């Protein structure tokens, strides 16, 4: 039988890999990322630029915490918050019929960047984040002594 420790490790690695890749590609091309956010038509220009500057590093720091196992509960909640936000933005774009590149992984990621695929991926990763939070108490009690 698979232990909760292994499940938590698997979830952490998957989430960390996605966050790290997404964060680095966005941080390397902040101009293209700000344009991608603008295409959602959700925020004023100044907020689009601010989100473009900050979000990549929030993803990278969350990934590093998930990888190292430090502050796992905080990292899980941040992951839940980010994927909830991404899901709402993508759902909004899908409902308005916007045919845009999601901007999830830099300027060009082909079919992986379509709104439909990105929405399914965001929901799946949101579920992963919630699952990680559920299995965390046993994991963090044993490994980190983190309080629930």
């Amino acid at each position: 039988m698979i232990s909760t420790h292994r499940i938590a490790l698997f979830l952490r690695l998957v989430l960390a890999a996605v966050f790290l890749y997404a964060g680095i590609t966005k941080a390397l091309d902040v101009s293209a990322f700000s344009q991608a956010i603008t295409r959602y038509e959700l925020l004023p220009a100044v907020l689009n630029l601010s989100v473009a500057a900050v979000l990549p590093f929030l993803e990278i720091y969350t990934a590093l915490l998930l990888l190292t196992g430090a502050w796992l509960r905080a990292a899980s909640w941040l992951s839940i918050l980010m994927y909830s936000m991404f899901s709402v933005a993508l759902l909004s774009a899908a409902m308005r019929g916007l045919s845009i590149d999601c901007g999830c992984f830099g300027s060009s990621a082909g079919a992986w960047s379509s709104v439909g695929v990105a929405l399914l991926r965001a929901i799946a990763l949101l579920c992963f984040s919630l699952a990680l939070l559920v299995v965390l108490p046993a994991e963090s009690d044993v490994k980190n002594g983190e309080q629930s």
Partner: protein
Amino acid sequence: MMRSLFKRMTLIIALAVITGAVLHGPSIYSLWQNTAVHDLELYSPQPVERSFVQQWVQKGQLIVDARSHSDYLNGHIGRAHSVPAGDGQRLHDVVACCVDRQQVLVYCSSVSCSDSFTVGEALFVAGFTQVYLYEGGFADWQQGQHNTEATLDEQGGQ
């Protein structure tokens, strides 16, 4: 416990804000300063076919290659300028030299790439009034047995 969790989350967010401000503050400020020529919401590039591009080339009009610079060096449509997606310096150079021409045609590899759309968008925001997208891209151009140019020196991108 909740307080400790909240503190940690706030600390991580604050760290991300500081890193973003330090590393991207100047470029974000520059983007903010240069964003206002055209409203992005008005961007509506016009898709064009190969025959249109042939005439465009014959007239010596402005063409931008949105593929990577190494792809550009290996071969490109005649007289095209290289502006890979996300390359702010080359974008700035093309805007500085040619924005007075108002019209620009952009292409990338093939119908499956989105870089021509992205670069066209940046050119529109920077001041070009009419952006044409050659959606078939370089693959379609080569299928048409048209002449291409290869650029051997690294400085030949503009």
